[in-house]
């Protein structure tokens, strides 16, 4: 929240320094987040049962090193690190899009039914078809997309309004969540535990092929999302003013939601439905940068950092290895909490 002030001429606006200072701050936060991300990536490459000293990393990445080192660092750890960074960034951008379009800090892919739909699709695949990794990814993807489509159809009437899509979304999501609870009660305990672990989102066993495919497919969507940013800023003035300044609110909103759905789908094919990153990353970004609107690029950086940090904790810091989605929720939650508490201290 940025304080509104009235200057001497009676004009209402944010404090006068804020434009230049605000840009500097966004830049500073971006640089800091990038540094943190580089540290996390390095940690991701050296940590693990097979010790690789830090000074060996550049050589190995450049193609040198013995066979086993290359396999461990490049094929296993680098793939996983790239998957975490990519999925986190996609989710961060998607979350910023959803929250901007619906103008609601609680709007996450859940609102469009993507998460609960993906989990329903995955559970039904598990119960009815097969438990292979590809089948589960396909099932969750289809489930998420069909749900998003149904919600869009139910909610569109005189165009997509933020409020209606939110209410329809929570209705459909609640039904699917109930269905999921019920399905979990119907299957054997072992199956239910497996489903819950997978459904939380996991980077266990990611391989280079699907990761590359999903991330490459997401690139044009990311570019499109960034092109939408100026239009979305116009929408923040309200639909009427936005239309008066040449934007088409309905089209912008529909495109932004479409982009968000595409990004979450790409992320889901890599890691399953990872919870909370899309909700937390934009809020953390905005609070750190103190911008009035949700910064897309910073959300991507922070999404990547949150997911990678969570995956490191999930792999190395816990007595039993857990799916990353379980840790994401806690790490993202703790971080959001500390940001809120620090904000309070600073103002007190």
């Amino acid at each position, binding site marked *: 929240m940025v304080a509104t002030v009235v200057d001497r001429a009676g004009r209402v606006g944010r404090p006068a320094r804020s434009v230049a200072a605000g840009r500097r701050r966004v830049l500073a936060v971006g640089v800091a987040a990038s540094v943190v991300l580089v540290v996390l990536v390095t940690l991701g490459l050296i940590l693990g049962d097979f010790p690789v000293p830090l000074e060996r990393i550049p050589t190995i990445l450049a193609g040198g090193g013995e066979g086993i080192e290359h396999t461990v660092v490049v094929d296993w750890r680098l793939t996983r690190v790239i998957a975490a960074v990519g999925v986190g960034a996609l989710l961060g951008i998607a979350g910023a899009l959803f929250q901007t379009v619906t103008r609601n800090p609680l709007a996450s892919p859940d609102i469009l039914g993507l998460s609960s739909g993906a989990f329903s699709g995955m559970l039904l695949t598990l119960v009815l078809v097969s438990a292979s990794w590809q089948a589960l990814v396909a099932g969750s993807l289809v489930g998420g997309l069909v749900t998003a489509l149904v919600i869009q159809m139910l909610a569109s009437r005189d165009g997509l309004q933020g409020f209606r899509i939110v209410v329809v979304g*929570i209705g459909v999501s609640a039904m699917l969540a109930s269905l999921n*609870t019920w399905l979990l009660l119907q299957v054997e305990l072992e199956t239910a535990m497996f489903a*819950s672990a997978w459904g939380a989102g996991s980077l266990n066993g990611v391989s280079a092929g699907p990761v590359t495919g999903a991330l490459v497919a997401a690139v044009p969507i990311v570019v499109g999302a960034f092109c939408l940013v100026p239009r979305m800023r116009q929408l923040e003035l309200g639909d009427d003013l936005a239309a008066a300044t040449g934007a088409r609110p309905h089209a912008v909103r529909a495109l932004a939601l479409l982009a968000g759905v595409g990004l979450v789908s790409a992320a889901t094919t890599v890691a399953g439905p990872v919870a909370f990153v899309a909700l937390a990353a934009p809020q953390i970004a905005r609070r750190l940068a103190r911008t009035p609107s949700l910064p897309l690029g910073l959300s991507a950086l922070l999404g990547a950092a949150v997911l990678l940090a969570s995956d490191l904790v999930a792999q190395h810091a816990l007595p039993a290895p857990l799916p990353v989605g379980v840790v994401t929720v806690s790490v993202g*939650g703790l971080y959001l909490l500390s940001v809120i508490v620090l904000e309070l201290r600073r103002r007190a």
Partner: protein
Amino acid sequence: MTVTTRPGRGILSVGVVAAILAVAVIASLALGANPLAPPAVIDALAGRGTRETSFVVWDLRVPRTVVGLIAGAALGAAGALMQAFTRNPLADPGLLGVGAGAAFAVALGVSLFGLSDPGEVVWPAFAGALLVTMAVSVIGASGPGGPVRLILAGVALGAVLSGITTAITLTDPEAFDRMRGWNAGSLLGAGLDDLGAIAPFVAAGAVLAFALAPGLNAMALGDDVARSQGVNVGRIRIGVIVAVTLLAGAATAIAGPISFVGLMIPHVVRWIVGPDQRAVLPLSLLAGPVVVLAADILGRVVIAPAEVPVGVVVAFVGAPLLIALARRRTARAL
């Protein structure tokens, strides 16, 4: 936004919903795997029934009906308070961390102390809900930023706890098994003793909620407007948090996390009587148990003699209604 008062419509709606609730209570006592005719129910209630009908009515159906009444009323009122207070149509009592706190306490109880009987987790769940909401309020309600800050604090702390809860259950198959049952929500857990002890908390929460209604009406126009009308915004805020904690905490303790009622009821009620909290709160209090009891009855008969847990049915009963209402032209934001 203007606060339109439609006293006539409000009183009429309360009457109609109360009548529907009476029907739901009778149906809840009569229907099930062993259906009884209404006269037999009345006989059994009056102590004149056969041993079998008395057992079915008094030992099986009265407790679950009472749980449904208390939990539904508490969730409906808590939801109305949360949405009025946060001015957010997505707000439900769970945002204060009630559900996450209760689930965390139950998971700990199940995993560490081997609690297994549904009745045993009532008090741990209530304690967990109270402690976590207190923490959320301390972090979120102090300082500037208003309800958004409180919501984010609740979401954040709730997420941390739910992550830990999932971690506990994923590493302990027995706890996972109990928790998936608890998560579905059920009116069968709590006995009449527990209900007698929990009811005063709900009553206190409801009284507090009614007392807050005029202040919430003023706050609907913005905190500054409310202040200029002499409303103590800080006091209302604390009052809402206390009332929601008592109501939703008690409901979660006796019935598990029944998630959709607190979210849906206030929307439906506002579309009937308008935004005046003096009408919305009592009507939510009455409409909540209607939905919970209807869902419970449906869950009993739909795959009889087996049952579908009430928490699962609630969304299937409520969501289509909510969506249909949201598609009407007149539906609008808070």
